[in-house]
């Protein structure tokens, strides 16, 4: 009864794999190492977390490699493809909710907690007895001015440029997708490559902005609620752009090797969806973190 044939009418239930267990060990070592590191066991922590990251990279190489090999051999039928697509869509939804927590913190601070500290509404007594003299304004590092005076990064400089870069990268990846569907290989590689370049430029600018903030503006993670929300939101976004860029590089090589056909290229679609997701998150960031 067991069926592991490549019959296109049968859902491919994959054979066993060591990668899930390897991945679990990798995750455990990575986060356990970080926790030790933070708690002062620096040496042990660094070794553990680096080993964990190495194992995770090995796992991803091996696991994705297995899946790509099976895909290229034609073991996946359309129904398997639908499962993959659903998996990616719901994964992106979970990422959206992760960012929602940090956006929620930003909105709560700006609309509620900072005005309350300044004496608005129910916060009158709080302001009078605990933080008298604090005038609520945004941006702020709070009534105790945690982290000291800091400067701001104007929205209409580098952030605007980065917005245009990401929007442009959304266009280039779409052109690449059309090229893939039309079977135009060179055009595909060029435009996908352009997307990668734009992603890298974005990251370089973002890194430059961070250096500027830390070195010249005294704007750090420790700059009260403004610094906290600014760096956590842009930081996690930057992390996702980094991941997205790596994914783009991977599928660029897969395009080079000809893994994708005109009508079946889930790997490409998944990366494109992810890229649009980081793009949309950036638009939210640009609006609520930089402009407003």
């Amino acid at each position, binding site marked *: 009864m067991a069926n592991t044939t490549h019959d296109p009418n049968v859902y491919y239930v*994959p054979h066993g794999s060591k990668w899930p267990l390897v991945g679990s060990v990798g995750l455990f070592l990575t986060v356990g190492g970080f926790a030790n590191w933070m708690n002062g066991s620096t040496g042990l922590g660094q070794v553990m977390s680096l080993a964990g990251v190495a194992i995770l990279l090995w796992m991803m190489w091996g696991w994705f490699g297995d899946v790509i090999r099976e895909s290229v051999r034609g073991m996946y039928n359309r129904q398997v493809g639908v*499962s993959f697509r659903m*998996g990616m869509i719901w994964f992106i939804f979970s990422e959206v909710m992760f960012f929602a927590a940090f956006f929620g913190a930003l909105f709560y601070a700006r609309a509620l907690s900072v005005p309350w500290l300044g004496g608005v509404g129910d916060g009158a007594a709080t302001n009078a007895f605990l933080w008298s003299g604090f005038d609520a304004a945004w941006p702020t590092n709070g*009534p105790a001015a945690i982290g000291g005076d800091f400067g701001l990064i104007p929205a209409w400089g580098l952030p605007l440029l980065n917005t245009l870069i990401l929007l442009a990268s959304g266009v280039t990846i779409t052109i690449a997708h059309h090229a893939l569907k039309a079977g135009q290989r060179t055009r595909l590689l060029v435009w996908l490559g352009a997307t990668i370049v734009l992603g890298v430029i974005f990251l370089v600018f973002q890194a430059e902005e961070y250096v500027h903030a830390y070195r010249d503006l005294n704007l750090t993670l420790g700059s009260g609620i403004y610094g*906290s929300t600014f760096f956590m939101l842009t930081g996690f976004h930057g992390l996702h752009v980094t991941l997205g860029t790596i994914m783009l590089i991977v599928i660029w090589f897969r395009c080079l090797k000809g893994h994708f056909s005109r009508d079946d290229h889930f790997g490409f679609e998944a990366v494109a969806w992810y890229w649009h997701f980081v793009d949309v998150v950036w638009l939210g960031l640009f609006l609520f973190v930089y402009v407003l």
Partner: protein
Amino acid sequence: MATDHTAHHDAHHHTPSFAQRWLFGTNHKDIGTLYLVFSLVMFLIGGAMALVIRAELFQPGLQLVNPEFFNQMTTVHALVMIFGAVMPAFVGLGNWMIPLMVGAPDMALPRMNNWSFWILPFAFLMLLSTLFMEGGGPAGGWTLYPPLSLQGGNSIAFVIFAIHLMGISSIMGAINIIATILNMRAPGMDLLKMPIFVWSWLITAFLLIAVMPVLAGAVTMLLTDKFFATSFFNAAGGGDPVLFQHIFWFFGHPEVYIMILPAFGIISEIIPTFARKPLFGYQAMVYAIASIAFLSFIVWAHHMFTVGMPLGGELFFMYATMLIAVPTGVKVFNWVSTMWKGSMTFETPMLFALGFVVMFTIGGFSGLMLAIVPADFQYHDTYFVVAHFHYVLVTGAIFAIMAGTYYWLPKWTGFMYNETLGKWHFWLSTIFVNLLFFPQHFLGLAGMPRRIPDYNIAFSDFNMISSVGAFGFGLSQLLFAYIVWSCARGGARATDRVWEGAKGLEWTVPSPAPHHTFTTPPRIDDRELAHGDVSH
């Protein structure tokens, strides 16, 4: 021929080695078994912690453990039971039964399924190891409210990362379940013909994907506040400790429905079987679950009435919370109506299901009391709250898990469990669990606060009764473990149908279910569905 392919014990019928089958496997039945066994182990560990708590509270004064350790027990007991016992048990039941119920050959993403499981043992290794660290485990309550949770030992970093791992596991598990239900149903298994258990899991999985990342965000902010100088929950920097409570409960309230909706599903499968009638109001049941899930997103602040919210907020969250009673009432009404004029028999699964209906409803009513803002000002953080959520979680979620286990155990193992012992288990559990939690209502109303190792001697009698109940209930669960273990080893042969009134695809395959089922999709016969022919 397939009857020889027992899923549990003849580990070698496919010739995979032990490691290939249990460590590297992709079979939904094996992974479901792993989840269920893991959950039972965690249930016993978490239960042992509860017994430490109840032993200390047997008498007023400090007897057995120091207060710091007591606080660690209340905190870790909750985390273990929620994330280690109840949630994995439902995922295990879902893993086993959803593919069988919708006629799918396996879960949609079988390797990721295995990863979802294998993250859990590591996560709990990390969580439980904090108890042995310098400074001890987390002691600020499972809700991890700052600033208290950040003022304990440094083990908080391990706790936070353990929660991240649990979240990753839950999200992947939920994605798998949604993809399975939406993509893997046999032709003819329309959405509105699916068993209610499958519906309940579809909606639960959505809740999981929506809120587990929010919890991840909340605990990440805790981590950075503690170790990286951020000010999310620090008023001096413009943040607010109450912000954590909002984010946490935006996760936390859907979370409590994550722990009860699959229970609704299980009960909705069992009652029709033993009442020998189709489920009353199938579509209303589906819409009720969906309504409860929707409402779960807009009631979170009823956990925080006493924290100091604007009046408008208190009123909104009070009324929204009370609205939940409507769809929940629909469900209870439909369960009762299903039994009305049915040909009822009272095997162990049915007993647990009936216990669920009665005692979950008690927990529902005390929840309604807690929803009333002025009353909650009195009840907040007392044993009344403890009594409330243990009625919905122990006599609710856990009773449903046990009902489901007895119900499907013959299908899993191919053997009938010992019915006499099963009934003993039910009656012992039911008597002791009420002895355990019912007096806590009175304690709470009289003002006994939760999470305190000592109390006024005026509370002595009820605490003593409660502790006796706790040990009785705890020991009764060893009987449960024995019944499951012995059923796995042998007993009377189970028929394919197992229960006379059982309907649904899972009963059309042999007992025990062969290692691979529905490799080619089955034909769906509407008369074979548990809720009857719903096309009219």
